[in-house]
């Protein structure tokens, strides 16, 4: 979706705020928001793509004025309600009012290390041939879906070159919305900066963007 998260190429945000010896967390609630988000992810109630969609579909004014862990916390509030784990009445009251819904698992402290070490690989078995090969010239689709997508606006309807064939990966556009993983080929695509930003831009800039097959056509 064309939400506030799709920031590439936008202007006017001012200088980058750097902090020497920055801590991981700037307040106790940030630690909790981080850990609660990971622990709830481990219940298997939604996919990582669904969690990204929950954050990016926050109203733009809220997204842009919230710190990152606030975005996570607000995204998590949406996820737990949408998935029926808590009701909006419970959220408003801050009190348990109904029985829990069964979840696939509850992360225990002793399983944290092994769970993190395993991670969540996104590659899947190859069941269809790749449509493109290294060196192919491809054009990204002109599209403006209201659903989750990982083709940034700044790179739409633009010609690039297949540089890497990563393999078959879970397709976020489907997986974010309960439509299954629909694994499809993922490519590393190289773009000239001038093809994206125009002839006046830095001639020595190039970009690499990882894009799924449905985003691309032969140029």
């Amino acid at each position, binding site marked *: 979706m064309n939400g506030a*998260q799709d*920031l*590439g*190429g*936008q202007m006017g*945000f*001012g*200088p980058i*705020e*750097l902090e*020497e*010896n*920055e801590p*991981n967390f*700037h*307040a106790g*609630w940030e*630690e*909790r928001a*981080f*850990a*609660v988000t*990971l622990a709830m992810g481990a219940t298997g109630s939604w996919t990582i793509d669904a969690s*990204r969609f929950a*954050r*990016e579909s926050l109203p733009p004014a809220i997204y842009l004025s919230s*710190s*990152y862990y*606030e975005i996570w916390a607000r995204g*998590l509030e949406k996820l*737990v309600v949408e998935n029926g*784990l808590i009701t909006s009445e419970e*959220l408003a009251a*801050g*009190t*348990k009012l109904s029985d*829990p819904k069964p979840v696939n698992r*509850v*992360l*225990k*402290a002793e399983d*944290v*290390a092994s769970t*993190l070490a*395993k*991670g969540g*690989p*996104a590659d899947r078995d190859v069941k269809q041939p790749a449509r493109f090969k290294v060196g192919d010239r491809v054009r990204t689709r002109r599209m403006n879906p209201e659903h989750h997508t*990982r083709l*940034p606006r700044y790179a739409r309807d633009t010609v690039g070159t297949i540089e890497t064939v990563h393999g078959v990966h879970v397709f*976020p556009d489907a997986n974010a919305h309960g439509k299954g993983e629909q694994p499809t080929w*993922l490519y590393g695509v190289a773009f000239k900066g001038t093809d994206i930003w125009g002839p006046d831009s*830095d001639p*020595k*800039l190039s*970009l*690499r*963007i*990882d*894009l799924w097959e449905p985003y691309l056509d032969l140029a």
Partner: protein
Amino acid sequence: MSHDHDHDHSELSDIELRVRALETLLTDKGYIDPPALDELIETYETKVGPKNGAKVVARAWSDPDYHARLMEDATSAIAELGFTGRQGEHMVAVENSAAVHNMVVCTLCSCYPWTVLGLPPVWYKSAPYRSRAVRDPRGVLAEFGVTLPDETEVKVWDSTAEVRYLVLPLRPAGTERWSEEKLAELVTRDSMIGTGLANSPFHQGSTA
């Protein structure tokens, strides 16, 4: 920070209250186990961070065979040093040279190679960096105090999928006989994102 100490609820910010309420509710419903939360925080506070990535870089600088394995299959080469898992499942190493400088961003969210760099700094997740890194990386680099020669190509990697990128910075001159342990001390977090360079042994560089 104004909320370091114990205060009445009335003095807690809206977001502090919301996160507290959410954690309490999810705990009461049995979906989360508080000791696991503490363990998650402890892991990223003490075990996972840019020191991991610095070991990878120092090994690649020191050992040509390891360097070759890292460039061929970064996920397994990094796993050799014991760093695997969440947000590092599909790693790719990209190497800086005199001709090419690599820089990594996630314009759509905050994708970052946790296994080697830990959790991303606030600036990496912020609108100023995410908006500008893909369009004006030299302007971004200037804010980090880095100026590249005009003829250097800048390659910006936008982390749109589950592939995570680790920049292999240029090895600083004057470190020919250095041990891996000593080399690792020159490898900054930012040099592995591509917003910085490895520290020079001759003068104090950035600590980030």
